[in-house]
Structures are given as C-alpha cells and as structure tokens.
C-alpha cells in the first residue's frame, strides 16, 4: 500500500502519466485507488496532433495496468520519508 499512500499525497499536483501505448497525458491528479488506477482533471495530451480524438476529453480515468511511468513534479518527492516508509513496510510494520 506504500505507493498508494504516496500517490494520495500527490493529489492536486500536476503529473504526466505515460502509458504503455506511448500516449502521455498531463493533468492534475484527482484521485488514485488501490490498483493505482489514476484519475486526472484538466488533461492535455502531450502529442495532441497524433491523438485528435483526445481533444474533446478534459478529464480521464486511466487503468493502473496500462501505466508505464508517472512523471512527478520536482520537489514533491521527499526521499527521506519514502525511505523510512519503505523500511517500515519491509519490516512488516
């Protein structure tokens, strides 16, 4: 559940989600669930000309299983906290 908890701290921040089909979408993180399904608002597709059907879409739900990367806003990652949480989870806490 660590990354689920971590993603919840990013709600309201702007992230770019890159999918396994190379589609990359930037938007404000609206919510995330246990499967790391992601909901974005105010979305825009990075290469809009290549995906014209996405122009009329302003918010979306992305299935966790199709995500390749999530590009995070710089400064939103506190490595120390993540580090500690990782250790604690590894110990079964």
């Amino acid at each position, binding site marked *: 559940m660590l990354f689920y908890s971590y993603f*919840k701290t990013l709600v309201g921040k702007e992230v770019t989600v890159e999918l396994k089909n190379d*589609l990359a979408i930037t938007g404000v993180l609206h919510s995330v*669930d*246990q499967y790391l399904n992601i909901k974005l608002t105010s979305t825009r597709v990075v290469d809009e000309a290549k995906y014209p*059907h996405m122009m*009329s879409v302003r918010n*979306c*739900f992305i299935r966790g299983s*199709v995500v390749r990367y999530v590009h995070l806003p710089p400064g939103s990652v506190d490595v120390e906290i*993540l580090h500690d949480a990782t250790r604690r989870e590894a110990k079964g806490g």
Partner: protein
Amino acid sequence: MAAPLPLGGGAPPPQPGPLGPPQLDYPPPGTALVEELDKKLLIQLRDGRKIIGVLRSFDQFANLVLEEAVERIIVGARYSDVPLGMYLLRGENLVLMGQLDPNHEAPPGMEAVSEAAIREALRAEREEARIKGTMRGRFDFLELE
C-alpha cells in the same frame, strides 16, 4: 503496533471494528467509476479503437456496460461513428476513459462522414501503407536507414 505511515493522507491499516468488518477510511476497492455512471464517455482500447457510450455499470476490474455504444473511426481529418448497441467491455482491454465535453463532442476541425466512406478511407490508408512497405522492401539493398 507500528506508527501509521508518515506520508500525509496515507491510510492507516484498517482496524477490525467491534462489529465485524474493518472500518475503512478510503473508498472500497473498484468504486472509482461511480462518478462516471450515466455519463457519456470516450473509451480508448488497447488495440487503438475508440468506443463512445453511456456508462451503465462497472466492476472492480473496470469491466464496463455501455449503452448506445458507437465505435469512432478516424482516418486523417474524417471520422465516422459506427453504432454498436449495448456493449459489455472486458476491463483488461481498457486503456483510458474520459468524459466527453458535451459542447465539443466531435473532434474539432473534423468532418463527419458515412460508415461506408470511412471504411473505404481506412482501406485506402492500409493499401497505401502496404505499398510503401513493399517499395521499402525492394530498395532494401540500398541500406536506407
């Protein structure tokens, strides 16, 4: 008993309540699509197809039931919506689903054409790609990059 995760907003592990099921402070799994029920959605599938329909039901795998579903086929600057009826979509094929802006449902700057016209355009596009492929094959000895 370990302290909860220090990450803000992180959910502490659910505690068994006095009356049976654990008390969750996060929504039950697979309920993220409740807000989308009865909305007109555009669904992108893993094979690249685009389906538009009204979401009537879903489950935790994102299996969906869509009413008045259509497949939107886009070739160049033309598109066509091919009616499919009531559709049940298996969740594993779903890539993403977005709410369509009701005022700009059609892709801006695109021309709506008949199903026959779009199928013909699709065929022409594939033929063109095939010819390009064979031309490329013939000139392979030139070692073009």
